[in-house]
């Protein structure tokens, strides 16, 4: 399963996951006090600088992860251009891009296992029953295992459609696709019941 964690080593990879998450939370809250374009752009510059130790490839991966935000940047800036409040628009956009980039940086430099361990710590701290934590761990493992399997089965369904029809496959494929997932769920449940203790 593909993960968003970057293979390019940076000093941030060595920082403990919990510290990174806490810093992200605190900075995200504080960032809403930025009020002038100069402040917001300086914040954006600072976040960009955090990417630099990773080199060009790391920076490119970070930029790729920002792409979904781009349409909103254009919309918000255009809106503020028309209403004549460009300065406010720059503050909003710079803060938005910086915060998304900062959150992405934490994701890119933290391994999935470390994230999971911190979540487990948090759940233990909340005194959730061990049984609940085991169920969560099992669910996480199942999704990670079965998403690629279902993507493969969905692709096969699409190919089967194309082999038989000149029309493009559309929403009709969702019905058999859902049945594939539900039937897999029944089979996995049976296997678990047969092999595992009480969940």
């Amino acid at each position: 399963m593909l993960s968003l964690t970057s293979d390019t080593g940076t000093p941030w990879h060595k920082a403990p996951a919990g510290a990174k998450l806490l810093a992200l939370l605190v900075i995200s809250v504080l960032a809403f006090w930025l009020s002038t374009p100069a402040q917001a752009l300086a914040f954006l510059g600072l976040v960009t600088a955090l990417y630099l130790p990773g080199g060009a490839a790391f920076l490119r991966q970070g930029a790729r992860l920002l792409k979904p935000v781009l349409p909103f940047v254009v919309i918000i800036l255009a809106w503020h251009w028309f209403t004549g409040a460009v300065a406010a628009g720059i503050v909003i956009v710079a803060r938005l891009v910086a915060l998304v980039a900062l959150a992405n940086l934490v994701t890119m430099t933290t391994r999935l296992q470390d994230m999971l361990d911190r979540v487990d710590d948090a759940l233990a701290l909340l005194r959730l029953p061990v049984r609940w934590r085991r169920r969560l761990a099992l669910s996480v493992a199942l999704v990670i295992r079965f998403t690629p399997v279902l993507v493969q089965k969905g692709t096969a369904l699409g190919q089967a459609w194309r082999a038989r029809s000149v029309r493009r496959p559309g929403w009709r494929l969702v019905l058999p696709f859902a049945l594939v997932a539900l039937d897999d769920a029944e089979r996995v449940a049976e296997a678990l019941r047969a092999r595992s203790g009480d969940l």
Partner: protein
Amino acid sequence: MERNITLIALFAALIAALGLVPKFDLASGVPITAQSMGVMLAGTILGARRGALAVLLVLFLVALGLPLLAGGRGGLGVFAGPTVGFLIGWPVAAFVTGWLAGAWRGGAPVLMTAIAAFIGGVIVLYAFGIVGFSLIAGKTLLESTAIMWVFVPGDIVKAVLTGFITEGVLRARPGLARG
């Protein structure tokens, strides 16, 4: 209990897969993926509680850093972005859709399920999405509604399709509706 866990987990995987399989465009040329329909289907097929849990599981894994959202998006960044309201609204949308669909199952199945999906997956979801956008982007609720309006027609189509697909699934696997 095993069955509940596997149904929730496999449906979460289905929601992820619906956003990742490139061939599942709903209409040719229109770039709307079937992923948000997966959220409505989670409610109508699994029921309110299990449906909401399946959606929560997807969001949990996205937050941990897996690229499970449509087009391979994921990570903590999506929760800082302008569409975070929609993500927070997803489990609520699945719950409301599932709850209404379950309560109305006695009537005309396709129509009532589609209406349930419309109320949960469009009205409730956009309430969250619009408030989220207005907070992140610094717009008034009215301005945010104007910007988000363009996505509504596609989601209404998905609500109608949810009605048909749910009817087909429950007819093929009648055991599901009983829980």
